[in-house]
């Protein structure tokens, strides 16, 4: 590799590595700080929340909280910047919102699902976007439920299978299109390859498709704008980028797909400071940094005169292999561009810095 190539492409620099004594399922930056949270499951079957602070080249453990059930996922998306409450979903189907200053009793708690909550997302908090703060959870029992922290016990929206139909596991959920107080959509990915887009304003199914492989992770490039792009990653090393600006009545949304690795792509995360750059993490312990390039024209008319979207192209900026085990969780810091944390199944937490993102 010549020096010139090294100098131009963004580099993924491993800043800190922290060995953990439990399986880490999710890691999140605490907004407006250099602190991060790890959520996981200890060997004795209890849930662990650990709060670390980044000091120079090391992470210092500030606090460790143990809960009776293992914790699968968490989000800060629905809290205010001052409160910074953490919403978690655990293996038992409980949704809890914790005040980390006083974590003994949750601020909000509900047994939302009958089985493990696989994925959680929050919208309306952190000073981003408008509208009520809401949390959506997707579970193995096939349902996707939207919760409002001001309303106890019942969800404000429930997407469940028709009576008598067999259910499929919901593996991932994401909020999007929350650009004003009324509009909001929830996108859910299932293990049989279904992706469904629910519109919460009209309480209906807006779009559904099947990408032929179980969907591991979906994310909109921004939650608080008119929906622009949706990335869905799946098993077998494939992911699809859908252009969400133009919906065709029969063909749905235009997409471009890429087969990046031989193994499952576990997560996709967009860079908070640039919505066209995202990172995918794979089952082979590798991270790929991608850039989406828009086509010359984002929509065109088809033979019947209805508008059809045009998908752009993808460019691989960098890839790096950090571990032999899958990297199951990934989070960009919303405050420092290029700083990210990832947790892998080899019980290691890594803080990475991606350089030269300004020049892209």
């Amino acid at each position, binding site marked *: 590799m010549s020096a010139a190539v090294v100098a131009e492409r963004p580099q993924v*620099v491993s800043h800190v590595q922290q060995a953990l004594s439990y399986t880490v399922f999710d890691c999140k930056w605490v907004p407006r700080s*250099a602190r991060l949270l790890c959520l996981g499951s200890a060997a004795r079957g209890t849930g662990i929340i650990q709060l670390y602070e980044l000091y120079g080249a090391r992470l210092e453990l500030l606090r460790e909280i143990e809960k009776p059930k293992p914790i699968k996922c968490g989000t800060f998306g629905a809290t205010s910047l001052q409160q910074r409450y953490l919403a978690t979903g655990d293996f038992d189907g409980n949704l809890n919102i914790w005040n980390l200053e006083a974590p003994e009793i949750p601020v909000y708690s509900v047994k939302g699902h009958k089985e493990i909550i696989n994925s959680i997302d929050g919208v309306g908090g952190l000073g981003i976007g408008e509208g009520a703060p809401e949390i959506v959870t997707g579970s193995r029992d096939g349902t996707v439920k939207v919760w409002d922290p001001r309303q106890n016990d019942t969800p404000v929206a429930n997407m469940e299978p028709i009576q008598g139909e067999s259910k499929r596991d919901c593996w991932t959920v994401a909020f999007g299109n929350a650009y004003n107080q009324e509009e909001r959509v929830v996108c859910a990915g299932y*293990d049989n390859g279904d992706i469904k887009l629910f519109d919460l304003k009209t309480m209906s199914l807006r779009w559904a498709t099947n990408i032929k492989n179980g969907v591991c992770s979906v994310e909109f490039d921004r939650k608080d704008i008119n929906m622009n792009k949706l990335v869905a990653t799946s098993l077998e090393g494939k992911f699809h980028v859908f252009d969400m600006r133009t919906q065709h009545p029969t063909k749905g949304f235009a997409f471009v797909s890429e087969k990046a690795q031989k193994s499952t792509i576990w997560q996709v995360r967009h860079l908070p400071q640039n919505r066209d750059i995202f990172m995918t993490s794979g089952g082979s312990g590798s991270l790929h940094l991608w850039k989406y390039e828009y086509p010359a024209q984002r929509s065109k008319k088809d033979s019947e005169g209805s508008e059809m979207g045009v998908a752009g192209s993808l460019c691989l900026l960098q890839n790096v292999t950090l571990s032999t085990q899958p990297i199951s969780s990934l989070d960009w810091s919303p405050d420092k561009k290029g700083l990210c944390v990832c947790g892998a199944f080899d019980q290691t937490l890594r803080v990475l810095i991606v350089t030269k993102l300004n020049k892209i």
Partner: protein
Amino acid sequence: MPVWLREHSWRQTLTAVYLSLPLRGARATPANIFCSEQYLKVSIPPFLFEAILYAPIDDTNSSAKIGNGNIFFTLYKKEPAMWDSLTLANADKEKLQYLRERAVLKAHEKAKEETEAKKITKQEHKKYALEATMKLEEAERKRIEDLKEKERQKVAKELELWKNQQKNGDKYKSIQKKGEIHQEIEPLKEKKSEKINKTQIPNEGASKTRLKSTKGCLGSCSIFSQNLKEEQLPAPRAAATIKVNFTPRVFPTALRESRVAEEEEWLHKQAEARRIINSDLSELEDLKEEEKNPDWLKDKGNKMFAMGDYLGAVNAYNLAVRLNNKLPLLYLNRAACHLKLRNLHKAIEDSSKALELLTPPVPDNESARVKAHVRRGTAFCQLELYTEGLQDYEAALKIDPRNKNIEKDAEKIRHLIQGTMQSS
């Protein structure tokens, strides 16, 4: 008998002997010269020259120059001394022999040592080359590592800076806010004193809460904005349910493209098995246990065929086929029945099906295939499709060339064909 070369001339110094040997027209190459410490031989068949030297010489440094029809030897003595003569006198045959042999042995050893030495030097050269390349690669790697390290340090510094900024920023913000609040409170207090007589409860209430909150910690200064925002937040959504339909999938595992083919096959086989069981269940309840066994039915059919009850045999075979349609013998035997019954088309169908099932053409199913071909051939001929019939007979002959009956029949058919061709 070799021709001895004796016309040599020599002279010596203290350290060296110079020997000149004329070659009578013969051409010499280095291979013809053999020299050891005390023995010198030049052999150019049929010429031969040998000499047992007076004293040992240093044969590695000595040299021989070939040219101008003679060989010029420069032999360096081991011990500087003047020799009385070139060769040893009174050298009897045995001594000569002994010396020769020793010389040869010595030469061999020397040759061995030389090859050894060469090998060792070669290895050392290789090692050296390897080490050199490794060093180069190391240097390259180190260079890249250094670049990366520099990047890392730069980035770490930036991170520290950012962190400090964050901390300072927070402090400043809180100090600023505090200042602002104090400023706000001053006019409020004035307003309050003015309106003390008016019952403007909302204002008072509001200002009271504001005062209260400022007594709290610095962080709560933003409760102002929080309260305002909360008033602007919409009420919780009206609860509703959306019913969802999933793309149907039989297996409880996740969908993977690479497994789809396997899954399809499995489902197909399951469906087949179920179909057979289902189709049998309805009609075969009144049959005895043995009658559900295709082999037993086949035997029954064979017996009936032998007795001449061709229709009964066909029935038995039909039932057997319904239970298991993958046994070629059933079709084969049914074809024979149909032939006897003169259901020629059915016979052809059955023999074709049998042949299909006998697809790996191995020696084991030779006889079965021969029978199938013969039966089909017979059926064709009886339908007067002689060319097709001949094809089948020839196929049968190919499998089993020694069968006389088939040959005879094939001949007959050929004649028939030629006959019809001539007549038409």
